[in-house]
């Protein structure tokens, strides 16, 4: 009944708004692409503003914009974007005839935000952005750890975004676990975007053009995850000339090349660590062998323009981590990797209609095998995903924008686990103790989304997403709704509500992501569903600053916790406990994106609670990653053309941990000593001390043989505060001691970068 109601409501909205807003044949429109004048790289989120008509738009993920219902006349069009000179163009609009014009922006240093604010408000009428954060990529690149600029690491300095520890890059966003985040690269899903056990992400910051994080209440065009959407767009490449860059760092080095290719461009970037090469130089004690470890990632993209209205994109992404250990009669190999290939076609029908079709294949695999004196074991799990998705974006009128689309996924899950000691034996020899199975699944989704402006002050966004999961025979129809009201010139209120679902579940260890295993929802577990309520106050308190104040409430049903003591895994309910969770809180985000000083101050107050029948005696508990207060201050200052400095300060409530009150000694038969066991008190009922940290960075630009170069010094954890990773009770002796395992000390690193 509910599903029929939502469908009827959407249909009513479509017809009502369509009828109330017939297209005016006397008005004109403007559409086109905005590109970098030097490289012809399309630019995302550029503001295009028709001044006298007070109409504007932002370029979308493909660099395309459209402004409709412009009265005939001669207007000045202003195009502006961070890092580029503002451009002004005079365009004559005639009755009933639209203008198609592409603009080129010239790179510069600083722009003012005056026009951007106006366009932001205009753009909000097209698509109300709830809990969306766009951080300029240049700012993200300055945030480093161990000399590595990392997208995920940068995002963790936003309010409402937490990690399980300093050495993990998995993101907990408003109480949701990392598997609840939809991570997209050029529109295609990536399943385990981490390197080095989760220490850094697989995204090469130099290959990234745009990073958009929607922390909740995301529109109907996105689905399949409960909490958030992280949308990463790779660079297209320089259309005009060949160029490149090489960077040498402590952990890894990287190189990128880009340039023109036929009617478009190409972009290629690679990164590799060389820890095993360094290890080879130093003499190793054969009695204490160290493992060999390395990782690499590769990004590639080819873009071709087919006429004025069509673009083709072929993009690929590959990452791999490998660890080999030999010693003590044991050999172990650990391999983890992602592969992604996507093909996208965009077409402009006219200034009102824009389409995109994306076909992609994504694969994530983890393989662990070993041999201990002839006892052989293997774990080999993978997920493959072939996806086709398409969308139509219709700028129907000045007041109505619609987007419709579909998505079809074909998943293949492979699970191979054999601990019998002889992986060559057949299953029947060893009584089904090994697992070797392949599961196939189709999922299909449709979505419809409308943005309607009731008047100059009030606009609404309504969407509906319907999904069908073949394995569990589940059909879900979930609405999304957002409203925006401009209270005063500098204050707008936005509210959002929506239902979100998730088919996939991740079996993982939060601090070590090597063994991540994705599982589908089968008929033994119910669908995971979340309900978001969000209210945002958007304020421009004074020039150059934007302040967002969010209040949110998120209810999650049928979420999962890994059953670490499961002895079998024939169905999904064997592997997980299923329960519920709720998170709520408030976030304050004061951002300055322009000028010599840029950065932000973010504060969040958050509460997270979970409840599982099998955990904590069925009582509600707060998870490990619940942090009540979270304060982050990020600043970057351009001293002059050569010198930049920056600082990051964080202060967070301590993580939760489980206390204990008593112990006993357990002995298996024939044992004379056994092991001590502690009896826990409330699960995650205690808190560690608060954690705080200061990171500083500085960079100097110069020329090396005439080539632009930069040396970057960053100091992680300047005052060497060793936060606690986890606390445990040491019961090795009769006296129990409480001990802490500490996290990273001060880490100064130096990197060198050269462009050619």
């Amino acid at each position, binding site marked *: 009944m509910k599903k029929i109601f939502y469908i009827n409501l959407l249909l009513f909205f479509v017809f009502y708004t369509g009828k109330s807003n017939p297209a005016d044949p006397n008005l004109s429109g403007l559409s086109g692409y905005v590109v970098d004048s030097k490289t012809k790289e399309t630019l995302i989120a550029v503001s295009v503003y028709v001044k006298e008509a007070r109409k504007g738009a932002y370029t979308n993920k493909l660099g395309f914009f459209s402004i409709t219902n412009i009265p005939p006349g001669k207007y000045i069009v202003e195009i502006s974007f961070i890092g580029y000179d503002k451009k002004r163009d005079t365009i004559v609009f005639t009755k009933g005839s639209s203008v198609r014009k592409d603009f080129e922006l010239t790179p510069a240093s600083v722009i003012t935000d005056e026009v951007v604010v106006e366009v932001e408000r205009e753009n909000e009428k097209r698509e109300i952005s709830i809990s969306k954060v766009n951080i300029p990529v240049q700012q993200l690149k300055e945030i480093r750890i161990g000399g590595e600029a990392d997208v995920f690491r940068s995002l963790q300095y936003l309010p409402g975004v937490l990690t399980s520890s300093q050495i993990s890059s998995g993101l907990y966003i408003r109480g949701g676990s990392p598997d609840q985040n939809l991570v997209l690269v050029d529109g295609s899903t990536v399943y385990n975007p981490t390197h080095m056990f989760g220490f850094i992400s697989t995204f090469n910051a130099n290959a990234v053009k745009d990073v958009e994080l929607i922390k909740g209440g995301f529109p109907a065009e996105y689905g399949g995850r409960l909490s958030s959407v992280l949308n990463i767009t790779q660079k297209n490449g320089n259309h005009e000339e060949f160029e490149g860059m090489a960077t040498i760092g402590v952990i890894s080095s990287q190189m990128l090349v880009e340039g023109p290719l036929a009617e478009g461009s190409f972009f290629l970037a690679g990164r590799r660590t060389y820890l095993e090469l360094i290890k080879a130089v130093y003499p190793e004690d054969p009695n204490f062998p160290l493992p060999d470890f390395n990782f690499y990632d590769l990004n590639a993209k080819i873009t071709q323009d087919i006429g004025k209205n069509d673009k083709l994109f072929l993009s690929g992404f590959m990452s791999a981590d490998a660890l080999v250990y030999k010693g003590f009669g044991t050999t172990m190999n650990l391999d983890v990797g992602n592969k992604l290939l996507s093909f996208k076609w965009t077409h402009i029908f006219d200034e009102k209609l824009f389409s995109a079709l994306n076909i992609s294949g994504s694969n994530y695999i983890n393989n662990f095998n070993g041999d201990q004196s002839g006892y052989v074991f293997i774990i080999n799990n993978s997920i493959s995903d072939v996806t086709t998705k398409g969308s139509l974006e219709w700028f129907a009128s000045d007041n109505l924008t619609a987007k419709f689309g579909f998505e079809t996924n074909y998943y293949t899950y492979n699970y191979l686990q054999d601990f*019998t000691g002889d992986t060559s034996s057949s299953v029947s020899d060893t009584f089904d103790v090994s697992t070797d199975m392949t599961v196939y699944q189709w999922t299909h989704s449709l979505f419809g989304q409308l943005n309607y402006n009731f008047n100059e002050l009030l606009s609404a966004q309504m969407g509906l997403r319907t999904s069908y999961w073949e394995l569990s025979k589940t059909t879900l129809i979930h609405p999304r709704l957002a409203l925006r009201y401009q209270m005063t010139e500098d204050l707008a209120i936005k509210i959002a509500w929506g239902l979100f679902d998730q088919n996939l579940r991740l079996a993982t260890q939060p601090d070590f992501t090597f063994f991540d295993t994705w599982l589908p929802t089968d008929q033994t577990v119910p669908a995971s569903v979340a309900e978001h309520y969000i209210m945002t106050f958007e304020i421009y308190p004074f020039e150059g600053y934007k302040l967002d104040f969010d209040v949110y409430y998120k209810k999650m049903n049928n979420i999962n916790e890994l059953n670490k003591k499961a002895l079998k895994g024939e169905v999904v309910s064997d592997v997980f406990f299923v329960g519920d969770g709720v998170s709520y809180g408030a976030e304050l985000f004061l951002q300055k994106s322009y000028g010599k000083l840029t950065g932000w101050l973010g504060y969040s107050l958050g509460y997270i609670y979970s409840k599982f029948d099998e955990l904590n005696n069925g009582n509600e508990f707060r998870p490990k990653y619940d942090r009540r207060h979270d304060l982050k201050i990020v600043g970057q200052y351009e001293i002059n053309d050569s010198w930049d400095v920056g600082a990051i300060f964080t202060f967070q409530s301590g993580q939760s941990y489980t206390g204990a*009150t008593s112990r006993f000694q357990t002995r298996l038969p024939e044992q004379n000593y056994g092991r001590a066991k502690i009896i826990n008190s409330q699960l995650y009922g205690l808190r560690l001390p608060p954690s705080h940290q200061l990171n500083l960075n500085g960079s100097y630009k110069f020329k090396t043989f005439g080539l632009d170069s930069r040396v970057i010094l960053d100091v992680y954890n300047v005052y060497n505060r060793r936060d606690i990773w986890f606390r445990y009770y040491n019961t*090795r002796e009769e006296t129990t001691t409480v001990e802490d395992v500490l996290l990273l000390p001060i880490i100064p690193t130096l990197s060198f970068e050269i462009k050619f």
Partner: protein
Amino acid sequence: MILKILNIALFLFILSVLTSCEDPVPFDYVEEKFVEAILIVGEPIQNIVVMRTQPLTKEYNYDSSMVKDAVVMINDGVNSLELEYKDGSYYYPDTSYRVQPQTKYKLTINFSDNKVLSGETTTPKTFNWIIPPKKQLYFPSGRDSITLPRVDSLDFEWELLTIFYMISVKCLDTLNYGIFLQPTTQELNRRISKRFSNDLRYRELTIWTFIPSNKTPVLWNYFKWYGLHEVAIWNPDKNFLNWGLQYFVDSSYDPRLSSVKGGIGVFGSASVIRDTTFLIKNQP
């Protein structure tokens, strides 16, 4: 305006500090009763340990945690057997009584404070060796190390009854070595030199592990001494299997893996096959 923002930020910061302080380690200890009782098919009822938990704030004392005055009863469906306490555990005095296979047993323990603890187990079937362990086994040659490939094997196999078994390897004599050789010598036994010097269970004579199979080559890591060893394969019931999982995984107690009511612990059973092997030193 900037001053206002700074004031707000300072207030938030102070609030954060005040409200996010570390929690002290808890000391609200509540004593619980604990039992470890494993019935072994074909063997007398013995080694049933009844204890009480102790607070973490005090030094743990194994002996003083013993409960010596409980009334421990085991019912085999026909007889009610009352156990006696001796030297740290409870046992059934009639040692001619043997635990039967495929039989349901019930445990009841009455404490002096009127608390009652109970459990049930159904003993598994018996089974046999297919390939028993070799009588003598040579440790990898060369240095006293297990970094080298194996030169011998201890492949053994047993009847397949279930998915999970447990293996125990126990050193039967840590002192003597040469007396077991032919001809005998005066050579004494010693520990195997290993690189992991801070062995968590240095004093432990018996090493346990799970095995999801009914055959295995030797795992050299499981030997801590040379000399005479007993290798035992255990076919556990579900309670004992869960308790083994409790033992191996996590340092904290998991109530879901307990099989007794009114307290914590295990009342389980197993059938077992045993044999011996002698581990020859690779050097004096």
